[in-house]
C-alpha cells in the first residue's frame, strides 16, 4: 500500500451564509434558460434565412417558429410530468414507453370489430389516458409504497411497456383517425392545437403547483423525505400522485404524437423522449436530486430543445444532430454542477 489514508472527512465546504438568507426570485431561476433560448433564436435570426417568417396558409399560421411550437408538444407535455417527478427526488424512465402504449391502445380500440373494439375516437382516447394513468399508478405504487429505487421501478415499464404496445398493434404503423385526432393535428386560432394543449397543461400545472401548497409539498418531499414525514407531509401520497400525473402527461403526449403523424407505432413513438424530457427539466433549473423545480423553466427547456433540433436540421447535416445534442447535454450538466463551477470559475458558486 503506497498511499496513506487521509482522515479528513469529506464534508463539502459550507457555502456562504448569504446563499441561504437571500431568497432568489422565482423569475431568476429561468434567467439562464431564457438567455440560452434568446441566444439560440438570435443565431437563427442571423444564420437561418426565413426562420422568423410566419405566413398564413390554408387558414392557419405557418413557418419555422410555428413548426417548433407544434413539434415541441410531446416533449413539453412529458417534461411537465417529469419536472414534478424529478422534484420529489425520483425519475420516470417509462414515459416514452407509456406514450407508445397510449397510442397503441387508442389505435387498437378504434380498429373495426374483428381485430379491435370499433370504439369512437373519443372513447378510445379516454381509454388510452386511463391506461396511462394506470401505468403512472403502477410506477407510483412501486416507488412510493414499496419504496423501490425510482430508476429500477420505472425500468420495469420502460422495458415491458413497448412489449405491451406491440402486443396491441404489432411493430408496424396503425392509423388513428376521427375528429379528435384531426383536431389535435389541426390548428386553433391559427396556432397548432397540440402546442396549445401543451401550453394549457403547463399553465394549469403551474397554477396548481404554485397557487396551492402542492408545489411546496412536492419540494419538501424531494428535499428531505424523513423530515417532511415528521413535519406531517403525507410523503407516500405526494410521491404516488406525481407519478400518476407523469403517467397522465405521457399518455397525453402519446395521443398528440400519434395524432401528429395520424398513426400509432409501438417502437418509434417516444423513443429516447425520456432523455429529452429530463434534459428539458434540468435545463429549466429543476434539480436532479430533488427539492427544487420550475414549471416555467421546463417549458423553456422543452422549447429550447425543439428549437435546437429544428435549427440543427437547417444548419448541420442530419448525421451531426446527435453529436451536437450530446455536447449540449454535457455543457448543461457541467454548468449546473456546483463542483464544476467551483473548480473552473473558482470562488463561490453562482445561483
Amino acid at each position, binding site marked *: 500500500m503506497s498511499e*496513506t489514508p487521509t*482522515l479528513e*472527512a469529506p464534508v463539502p465546504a459550507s457555502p456562504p451564509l448569504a446563499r441561504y438568507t437571500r431568497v432568489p426570485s422565482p423569475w431568476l431561476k429561468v434567467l439562464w434558460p431564457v438567455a440560452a433560448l434568446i441566444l439560440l433564436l438570435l443565431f437563427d435570426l442571423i444564420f437561418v434565412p426565413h426562420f422568423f417568417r410566419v405566413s398564413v396558409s390554408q387558414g392557419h399560421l405557418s413557418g419555422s417558429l410555428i413548426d417548433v411550437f407544434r413539434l415541441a408538444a410531446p416533449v413539453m407535455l412529458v417534461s411537465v410530468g417529469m419536472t414534478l417527478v424529478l422534484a420529489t427526488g425520483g425519475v420516470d424512465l417509462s414515459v416514452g414507453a407509456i406514450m407508445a402504449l397510449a397510442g397503441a391502445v387508442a389505435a387498437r380500440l378504434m380498429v373495426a370489430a374483428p381485430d379491435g373494439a370499433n370504439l369512437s375516437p373519443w372513447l378510445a382516447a379516454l381509454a388510452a389516458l386511463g391506461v396511462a394513468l394506470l401505468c403512472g399508478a403502477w410506477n407510483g405504487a412501486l416507488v412510493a409504497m414499496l419504496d423501490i429505487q425510482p*430508476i429500477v421501478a420505472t425500468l*420495469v415499464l420502460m422495458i*415491458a411497456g413497448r412489449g405491451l404496445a406491440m*402486443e396491441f398493434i404489432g411493430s408496424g404503423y396503425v392509423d388513428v383517425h376521427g375528429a379528435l385526432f384531426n383536431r389535435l393535428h389541426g390548428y386553433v386560432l391559427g396556432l397548432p392545437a397540440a402546442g396549445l394543449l401543451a401550453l394549457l397543461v403547463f399553465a394549469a400545472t403551474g397554477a396548481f403547483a404554485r397557487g396551492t401548497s402542492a408545489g411546496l409539498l412536492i419540494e419538501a418531499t424531494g428535499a428531505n423525505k424523513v423530515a417532511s414525514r415528521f413535519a406531517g407531509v403525507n410523503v407516500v401520497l405526494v410521491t404516488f400522485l406525481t407519478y400518476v400525473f407523469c403517467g397522465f402527461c405521457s399518455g397525453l403526449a402519446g395521443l398528440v404524437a400519434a395524432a401528429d403523424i395520424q398513426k400509432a407505432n409501438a417502437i418509434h413513438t417516444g423513443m429516447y423522449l425520456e432523455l429529452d424530457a429530463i434534459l428539458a427539466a434540468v435545463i429549466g433549473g429543476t434539480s436532479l436530486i430533488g427539492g427544487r423545480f420550475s414549471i416555467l423553466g421546463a417549458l423553456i427547456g422543452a422549447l429550447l430543445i425543439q428549437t435546437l433540433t429544428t435549427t440543427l436540421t437547417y444548419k448541420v447535416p442530419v*448525421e451531426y444532430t446527435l453529436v451536437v445534442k*450530446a455536447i449540449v*447535454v454535457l455543457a448543461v450538466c457541467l454548468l449546473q454542477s456546483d463542483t464544476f463551477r467551483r473548480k473552473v470559475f473558482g470562488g463561490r458558486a453562482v445561483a
Partner: protein
Amino acid sequence: MKFRLDEKHYPLLATFVVCAMLYLFGAVSYRHFASPQVFADFFSENAPLGIAALGLTFVILSGGIDLSVASVMALSTMVIAGMTARLHVHPALAVLAALAMGTLIGWATGLLVHVFELPPFLVTLATLFLARGACFLVSMTPIDVSGHNALGRAFAAMDVSVGGIDVRARAWMLLALVLLGVLVARFTRFGRGVYALDGNEAAAKLMGLPIGRIKVGVYTLGGFCSALAGVISMSMISSGDPIKYMGYELDAIAAVVIGGTLLTGGVGYVAGTLLGVLILALIQTIITFDGRLDSSWTRITIGLLLFAFIALQKLLTRFRLGRGKIRFPAAPASV
C-alpha cells in the same frame, strides 16, 4: 472456510432456480430444446450481451449506471466496418482502434463522474447520444463487410467442436471473461474497492480507498467491455449498422439486475450476471421455439421477471434490516 447459505445469497439462488425452471420447462415442452447444441448456442448467440453486461455489473456494483453500453457497442461495429471496408485498414488494427475508442469513452465518462461529481445517469446519457451520433458520422447507412470479413473468419477458425457440438470461440471468450471478472471482483484490491464504493463514498474515502481511481477504472472497464461486445458482434453479423442495438442497454441492465445485483450497488455477483444473460436467452429461445407467441412477449416477460426480482430483493433487504434491528437494538433505525 465453511460455506454457509446467507441471506445475501438468496437473490443469486433465486436467479439460479428461475434459470433451471425455465430450462426444464423448455426441455419438457419443446422437442430438441434439451439438445446440447441449443445449450451451447445460448452462450454463442448472447456473447455480446454477456460481455457488455459483465462490464456493466462492475459499474452498477460501484453504485453507478452506464446507459451508453448499446451505443458504444454500435460505434465499435461502425469503427471496425468503416476502417476495414472504407479505409482498407488491417482488421486487427481496426479491432484495436475500436477497443481503444471504447476504453477512451469509458475513461472520459469516469473522469466526468468523478472530477465534476456529475450524476452518472446524465453523463452516460450524453455519451449515449455522442456514441450514437458518432455512428452516424461514420455512415448513415449500414456498411457491409461480408466480402472481406477477416474478423469473422478469424473467429470462425477458433471455433471448437466438443463431442460434435459447435461451441463458438465467442462462447469460450464469454466464459473466460466471466471467470476473470469473478476473480477480479473477489480477489483484487480493485474488486474489493468496487464493492466498498457502493454509494457510500464518504466511508470508502475514510477507509483510505483510492475512490477516484476505482470510479474511473469501473467506467473505463465498462467502456472496454462494451467495445469488446461490439467486436464480437461484428464477427457474428459482418456488417456495421449505425442504428443497431437501439435500446439494448435495457437488456444489459435487466440481465445485471435479474442476475441478483442491486441497482443501488454494493451487493451482487459477477457470476449472477451470466445467469441473468442465460435467463434472457432462455426466454428468447422458448418464445422462438413456441412460435405462437409474438416477439413482443420477450419484452413483457423480461419486464415481469425484472419486477419479480426487484420485489424479491426489496423483501430480502427489509428482512435483513429487521433482523439487524433485533440483533443490535442500539443501532440507529435509519440506514
